[in-house]
């Protein structure tokens, strides 16, 4: 029987390895009626029982059109490639091993894995894989636009590498070892993830024109993890501690680019240098630079068993993520607890508690405010040129809307009213407090009922959930500004009407992508008239609405809503031991209702 499994595992592995029909491979049906007797496993003189398979083959590919979508993660070079796969596994007493090797004839298509088990006292694993990821190349041609005003009063683009096909190679190395003593286990792991190749980087020069520029940017990114910890079991108490240290950096040098001269776009006079933070006079500046990120976390988990199969669970996590380039930190501290208590044979009670806080450093943004080199504002910053209309400085402190302290409580009552029938009734409460946002507190009340039952040839399950959300996260004053001054100001002043630099502040409508009411239902029914046939019909529905925005403002209706409806059916037929069929269909319809707002301004 093991040999027969090998027969199909080789085939299945080749399908995946050769990146052919990975997603389309149907589920393996009931074991076929192959009567070939399996020869006994090989045994060496040392007594090791081992088995395996080796495959040699070739891959040929023909392509047409853009490969970035149809073969986003697949090697489709039109060269004949040799492929090899080798698998072996075996055991000797308490020692077990399992080794597999695949190489698809291309460095971007290879996988290796080895698992070793020494009498369950020491377990070790090593894996490595590599695959390509094609990235899009934005042609930028759609941004171009012109005007009859002369000069450089246009939007234009420059793609410095128009023929480039962007792609990165993804590599992942993962290794770990577990040491299992009597009541204590120690584990140690190391993971390295690399992304190497080229991607597109974009930047824009302003004022003289809107000039969007695309570059080929090298990527040489490494993420390295070290994980260590221990587990202990003492009577009804189980404890686990895990430490993680992660470092991410991109060692590729950023593109250096000299931005356009900030001249007046129509007259080309050099009088706009105080309207930008940098221009040609600043010299070459870095584009698309990635910071170095370091993260560490400490996690403590515990479980205490209670009489009668009850239990108390809990965990505590503390982590810190730091942008080493800028010296900014993101801290997380959280705790979770769960109490579970069976009530006789027919019911159970569960209660959950969770609270965590996210603290993101505030950032002082020191805006570069150069002076104009010519014109009426020569020698003045932009604020100094318009002292009555603008603040004294554009410096500001960015305080993160990510800062928050959510608290969650939940309780669930489970009951088994009949044989093979289970029902769960639950209630949840969540409160999210934010430090630096106009929506300071969001409260959510959730109720749900779920169940599953088996009745004869039918098996059904369902869940209905309803959430009532008070003050969901939204963007206040996000859209619909006052109308700009509909004529040009004479000279530089007086600026009588609403000017472009004030239009953002004049926005009136609140927008959000979060509901105040959220209803959800999912259900599935499976009919299995015999052991070789199963038909499942399933349906999922969600209706999320927010009717508490400043609807009706100025005649605009800013209500928000999202509805999702997704029916489907799956069929499995294994008529006899010689053939099997799986088929399915799903449909998903999603509708979003929202206010659209676009600022009509030409910069």
């Amino acid at each position, binding site marked *: 029987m093991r040999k027969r499994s090998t027969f199909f595992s080789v085939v299945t592995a*080749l399908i995946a390895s050769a*990146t*052919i029909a990975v997603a389309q491979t149907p589920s393996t049906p009931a074991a076929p009626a192959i009567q070939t007797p399996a020869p006994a496993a090989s045994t060496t003189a040392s007594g090791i029982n081992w088995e395996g398979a080796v495959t040699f083959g070739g891959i040929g590919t023909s392509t047409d059109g853009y490969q970035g979508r149809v073969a986003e993660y697949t090697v*489709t070079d039109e060269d004949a490639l040799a492929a090899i796969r080798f698998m072996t596994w075996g055991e000797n007493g308490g020692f077990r091993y399992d080794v597999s090797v695949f190489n698809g004839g291309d460095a971007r298509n290879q996988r290796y894995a080895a698992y070793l088990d020494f009498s369950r006292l020491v377990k070790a694993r090593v894996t490595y894989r590599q695959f390509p990821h094609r990235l899009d190349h934005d042609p930028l041609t759609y941004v171009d636009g012109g005007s009859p005003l002369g000069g450089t009063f246009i939007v234009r683009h420059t793609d410095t590498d128009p023929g480039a096909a962007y792609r990165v190679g993804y590599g992942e190395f993962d290794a770990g070892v577990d040491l299992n003593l009597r009541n204590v286990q120690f584990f140690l792991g190391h993971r390295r993830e690399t992304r190497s190749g080229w991607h597109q980087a974009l930047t824009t020069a302003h004022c003289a024109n809107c000039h969007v520029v695309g570059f080929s940017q090298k990527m040489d990114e490494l993420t390295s993890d070290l994980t260590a910890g221990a587990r202990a079991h003492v009577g009804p108490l189980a404890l686990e501690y895990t430490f993680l240290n992660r470092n991410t950096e991109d060692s590729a040098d950023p593109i250096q680019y000299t931005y356009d001269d900030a001249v007046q776009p129509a007259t080309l006079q050099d009088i706009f240098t105080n309207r930008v933070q940098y221009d040609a006079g600043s010299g070459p500046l870095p584009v698309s630079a990635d910071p170095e990120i370091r993260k560490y976390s400490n996690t403590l988990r515990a479980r205490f068993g209670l009489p009668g199969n009850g239990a108390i669970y809990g965990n505590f996590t503390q982590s810190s993520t730091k942008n080493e380039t800028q010296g900014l930190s993101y801290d997380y501290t959280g705790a979770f607890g769960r109490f579970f208590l069976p009530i006789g044979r027919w019911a159970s009670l569960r209660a959950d508690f969770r609270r965590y806080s996210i603290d993101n450093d505030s950032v002082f943004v020191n805006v570069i405010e150069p002076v104009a080199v010519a014109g009426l504002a020569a020698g003045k910053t932009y604020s100094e040129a318009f002292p009555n209309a603008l603040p004294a400085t554009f410096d500001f402190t960015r305080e993160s809307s990510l800062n928050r302290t959510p608290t969650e409580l939940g309780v669930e009552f489970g009951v088994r009213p009949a044989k093979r029938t289970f029902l769960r009734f639950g209630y949840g409460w969540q409160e999210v407090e934010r430090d630096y946002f106009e929506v300071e507190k969001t409260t959510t009340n959730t109720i749900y009922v779920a169940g599953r039952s088996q009745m004869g040839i039918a098996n059904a399950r369902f869940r209905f959930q309803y959430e009532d959300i008070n003050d969901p996260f939204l963007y206040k004053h996000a859209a619909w500004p006052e109308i700009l001054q509909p004529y040009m100001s004479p000279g530089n002043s007086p600026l009588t009407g609403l000017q472009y630099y004030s239009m953002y502040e004049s926005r009136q409508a609140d927008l959000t992508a979060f509901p105040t009411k959220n209803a959800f239902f999912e259900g599935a029914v499976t009919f299995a008239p015999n052991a070789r046939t199963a038909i499942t019909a399933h349906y999922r529905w969600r209706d999320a609405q927010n009717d508490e925005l400043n609807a009706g403002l100025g005649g605009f209706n800013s209500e928000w809503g999202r509805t999702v409806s997704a029916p489907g059916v799956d069929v499995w037929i294994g008529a006899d031991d010689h053939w099997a069929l799986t088929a399915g269909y799903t449909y998903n319809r999603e509708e979003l*209702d929202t206010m659209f707002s676009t600022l009509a301004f030409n910069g």
Partner: protein
Amino acid sequence: MAGYEQHNHNAWVGVQVYPTSRTEVFANLLWNRADATIRDFGYDGGPYTAQLVGLDFPLHSASMAGFSDLDFGQVGLGGGVNVRMTDQLILNALLNYSKVDDKQPYIEDVTGSYFQFFGGVSWVF
């Protein structure tokens, strides 16, 4: 109310046949069709195009109809045969055809396809 609407169809069929005790034949089909669009977008760009002396930026056209229409199709067709010549020797052949059809290119046309063949021999020990 303006909004965004999308439809997504997915269907698949897989067949696995063992005509003899030493032969496995399989085939599978995956089909996807999806479309999405802005709807009921009552944008009137007339006043802006009149004010701004003939700028021809897309957002200043008189209508946004069809601005973000997407119409996307994908098909994957695969098949193969494995023949066990002896207890140790297996012959493998696989074919796969995949195609993406971008019927309404947005930023760029991502239509493309590839045909891939694998032939090999396996030795089981």
